[in-house]
């Protein structure tokens, strides 16, 4: 079973990102589960949401504690949260950032990828300069990691979930898919 954790801020469409990604997994033959960490939902506050995907039936209904991969929709979150909490060794950590973090030590033992989703979103006129809508770019970038779910499934999922400006969102996802930088395994000792 695949478990993925998304980090974001209230208002960034983090929950919708997990729903879209779950739907895309479902379209390529996975059983899925997606759910947010439920709390007081405020714009700007850190939020988490999860995806479970498996070829077999999923029975478990608990929070995700040991994700296989982590997606960080806002790199400023890295200052306040531990993005690698419970992350399985060798798991991917995908960060919305124009460049890799200057200090790579916290990511030692994990695979790093980054994507400038803000720029892509703004390029597709998604959201405002202060609040770009990056969720579709992030799932596009995620799809590239394993080439699963494939972009057709991602595009279909986006079209279902985001009926307004669907094409711009799909375009953003495709751009992210193509532009994501896969740094790969960070060697060294994890000091976080």
């Amino acid at each position, binding site marked *: 079973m695949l478990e993925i954790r998304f980090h974001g801020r209230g208002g960034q469409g983090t929950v919708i990102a*997990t*729903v879209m990604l*779950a*739907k895309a997994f*479902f379209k390529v033959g996975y*059983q*899925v*589960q*997606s*759910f*947010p960490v*439920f709390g007081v939902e405020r714009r700007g506050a850190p939020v988490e949401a999860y995806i479970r995907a498996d070829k077999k039936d*999923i*029975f*478990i*209904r*608990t*929070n995700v*504690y040991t994700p296989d991969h982590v997606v960080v929709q806002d790199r400023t979150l890295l200052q306040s949260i531990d993005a690698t909490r419970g992350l399985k060794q060798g798991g991917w950590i995908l960060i919305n950032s124009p460049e890799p973090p200057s200090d790579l030590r916290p990511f030692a033992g994990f695979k790093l990828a980054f994507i400038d989703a803000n720029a892509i979103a703004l390029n597709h006129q998604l959201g405002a300069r202060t609040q770009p809508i990056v969720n579709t770019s992030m799932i596009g970038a995620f799809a590239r990691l394993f080439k699963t779910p494939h972009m057709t499934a991602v595009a279909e999922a986006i079209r279902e979930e985001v009926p307004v400006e669907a094409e711009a969102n799909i375009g953003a996802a495709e751009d992210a898919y193509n532009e994501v930088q896969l740094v790969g395994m960070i060697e060294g000792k994890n000091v976080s």
Partner: protein
Amino acid sequence: MKKVLEGSHAVAEAVRLSRVTVISAYPITPQTHIIEYLSDYVADGTLKASFLKVESEHSAIASLVGAASCGVRTFTSSSSQGLALMHEILHWTSGARLPIVMAEVNRALAPGWNIWADQLDSLSQRDTGWIQLYCEHGQEVLDTVFLAYRLAEAVSLPVMVIMDAFFLSHTYEPVDVPEQELVDRFLPAFKPKFQVDADNLVALSPLVTPNFYMEMRHNMAKAMEESILQLAEIEEDFSNIFGRYYGPIEPFLCDDAEIIMVTSGTVTGTSRQVIQELREKGEKVGLLKIKLFRPFPSEIIRKALGPAKKIAIIDRNFSFGAGGIFAQEVRAAMCNLSDCPQIFGYIAGLGGRDVTTDLLEDIYWRTKKSEVLSEESIWMGLQEENHAVERS
């Protein structure tokens, strides 16, 4: 067609497919999504129904008493404090024999203010004469709405379809949403056994003197009893059309089980995984899911649990001064068995605390190791430091 849907959305889809005529509800987290979907359906004409916007839950259910008395299919939905506010009219609904269906999203009661999963809200209403069906996953919740209407209309009693907050209400998962035509086959238009009729006036729910009240209540008690058999027949019908079956209880790997864990709601799903893992390790453990809580299917439960040595009941609720409510009910059902298994009551997951696989395993091992019942209710997962303060 299978779709990835939120649990709340599954309920709304079921209500739409059930061709409900009157909906009346008041928003409260975590139930709000259900009525948001429904109000969209009513607004865009997908569902031809009246959506009554009322000023409180009390009015929501009271207005449905009026609507249902007119012989139409009705729906409401609530949670926690909202359900508590309905309490008075819940008695009225069953006494008036109105087949209203409610989706109840289990949420803790305040204070402390808490919007997360806890069964005490619906279990507090266990004596109101409503049939209660607890659900495990999105598909079950959708299917149970159909079952609920069939059952309510067969026995003239209201039904609560109950689901855990967030773990079910806000979780997206694949759900098969059937075609309207199939649903219509299973659930034909409501044929009321009585209704308000302007040409043939009837006074509903007037004064009933001691001469008749007991008979009236006995008639209700019989209807409750009969609903177990009715549900079985309805489910048979349902599985013939849809190929799915739930049953009032569901024994899972119980055949040779020495220890049976008893669960309800979403804890069941996680328990299935834990029990499969324990089985792989050679443990003789089974699981009994209780779906039908009212009427309590005592006889079936006795048969299912009787052969076990130990029973571990997991309650996401607590009746103060008594214990876990499912545990109480199971104990009452089992007490006259000559060779009654030892029954352990565990309290877990109150106020939305996660019931993890580790915790469930812990419950199993504790049960296995305990020779005698040390406590009536064993509270699981209390934080050590807080617990210590309490004990000092």
